[in-house]
């Protein structure tokens, strides 16, 4: 189309406003000098950034969140990549059923999974909450590992693997020298999506929290409910900055659209 329709263009502008403007207000209020969350901010200062970075519940929770997200991502890939290979390259009976099972964490409400894990793992099996969180988060991330690496496995020609085998390479050597290089973009995308998904998760982390191990989003959520100070705006701005850095890195490595192209298909 030559010129874009004014109706479509105004709907798009409205969409961007709803997506972006509230985030800008968070950043603007983070630099206030005043005690309360209000707009326009009173004075300009970095005091709430100082408060946020020296408030121990936040720094502890940040470390917990990073630790959990890293471990869950590594585990989900370690379990998910072999499963993807089996689903796509193995001649298994009931393949669509298995695929459906691997996507089930996307469909089941996260609060339901969280409550289920709290009852079954923490109360019945008496696991501690870190173990329960790790199991819950890893299971939640498996669909990303399977779908996103699966999407790049589709691009890999099985004939190449057959050729490597025919030339005498062992199955393991074939995997590492032929299949893995093709999978690499998929694995990087899956790792990025998994890490972000685990780091930002609220429903599962909320139901599996304990006094010793709480994630950052859950800690921030609790804080918002009790206090109306701009410390959350400052913390949010810091998270926003970190996310922008991550997005720029992702864009440089793979391209943004490619990473997200794998979610829905």
């Amino acid at each position, binding site marked *: 189309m030559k010129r874009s*329709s004014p109706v479509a263009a105004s*709907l798009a502008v409205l969409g961007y406003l709803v997506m972006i403007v509230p985030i800008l207000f968070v950043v603007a209020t983070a630099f206030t000098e005043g005690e309360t*969350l*209000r707009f326009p901010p009173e004075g300009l200062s970095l005091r709430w950034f100082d408060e946020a970075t020296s408030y121990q519940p936040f720094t502890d929770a940040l470390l917990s969140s990073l630790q959990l997200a890293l471990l869950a991502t590594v585990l989900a890939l370690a379990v998910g990549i072999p499963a993807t290979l089996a*689903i796509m390259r193995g001649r298994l009976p009931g393949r669509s059923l298995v695929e459906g099972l691997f996507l089930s964490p996307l469909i089941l*409400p996260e609060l339901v999974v969280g409550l289920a894990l709290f009852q079954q793992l923490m109360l019945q099996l008496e696991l501690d909450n870190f173990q329960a969180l790790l199991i819950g988060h890893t299971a939640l991330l498996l669909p990303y590992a399977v779908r996103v690496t699966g999407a790049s496995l589709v691009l890999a020609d099985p004939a190449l693997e057959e050729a490597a085998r025919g030339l005498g390479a062992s199955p393991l050597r074939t995997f590492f020298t032929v299949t893995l290089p093709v999978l690499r973009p998929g694995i990087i995308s899956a790792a990025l999506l998994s890490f972000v998904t685990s780091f930002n998760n609220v429903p599962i982390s909320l139901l599996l929290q304990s006094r010793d191990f709480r994630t950052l989003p859950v800690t921030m959520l609790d804080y918002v409910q009790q206090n109306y100070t701009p410390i959350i705006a400052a913390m949010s701005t810091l998270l926003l900055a970190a*996310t922008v850095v991550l997005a720029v890195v992702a864009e440089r490595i793979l391209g943004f659209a490619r990473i997200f192209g794998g979610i*829905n298909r």
Partner: protein
Amino acid sequence: MIRSRRIALALLLPGLALLVGGVVAPSLVMLLSPPRVETGEVLDRLGRMLSDPYDLEIVWRTLRVGLVVTAICVLLGFPTAFLLARSRSRWAGPLLALAIFPLLLSNVVRTYGWLVVLGSNGVVGKTLVALGFTDEAPQLLYTELAVVLGLVQLFLPLAIVTCYSAVAQVDAGLDDAARGLGAGRTRTMWSVVIPLSMPGIAMAATLVFAGAVTAYTTPYLLGGSRQRMLSTQLFSYSGVTLDWAAASATAIVMTILVVLVYVASTLATRTRGRIQ
């Protein structure tokens, strides 16, 4: 190809074990017979929930909010995706990235923005007072409107990304052909672009609806206890009052809602595929 079935099964096994033991089995037990609850109590509670006006209002509100949010997200998301997919401007790439970016950002951060915008000392209230529309800032937070706005902000990126991949798969040459044959812009849109992108639009609507009726952070922060939804109610039963029969009953309603929508969307897409 993995020639040995045994090796394929061995590769699959850890994942299967994790999903069955870590998601499916615990969820089924929780939904049907939670610990410390007598048999039959969950169904009993479910029956009472579906006849109690207060509980029904929560179910109805959740459905209503889900449908409104889905409609708005498709209404705003599809045109955005269409313009981005068809644009040859050098701004299209950065704008697409800007639409995707919020997906990486924490829900808490995104929702918190609305507290600044809609709060009692917020932008909207202050502006209305300054312009002389009201003497006192109106109550905007903890209303259904606030929840809808927050959820639209949350799920619009998902709608845009999903519609974008659908529109991008429709050959732009078809648009030009329709225009060349004399169809106007509106007619081309409704009889070429939208029908061909329908599977993507349906997928976007499904994802947004399922997300909106199960989201917790946004209804919690923007709706509070005044605008209870199934998710905030479920958390209050399971984390605060420890009424596990009620929690399971709420979870059943929520799960059925979501599964129904997925099944309906899968069936609809399949039937369409057969017709075409």
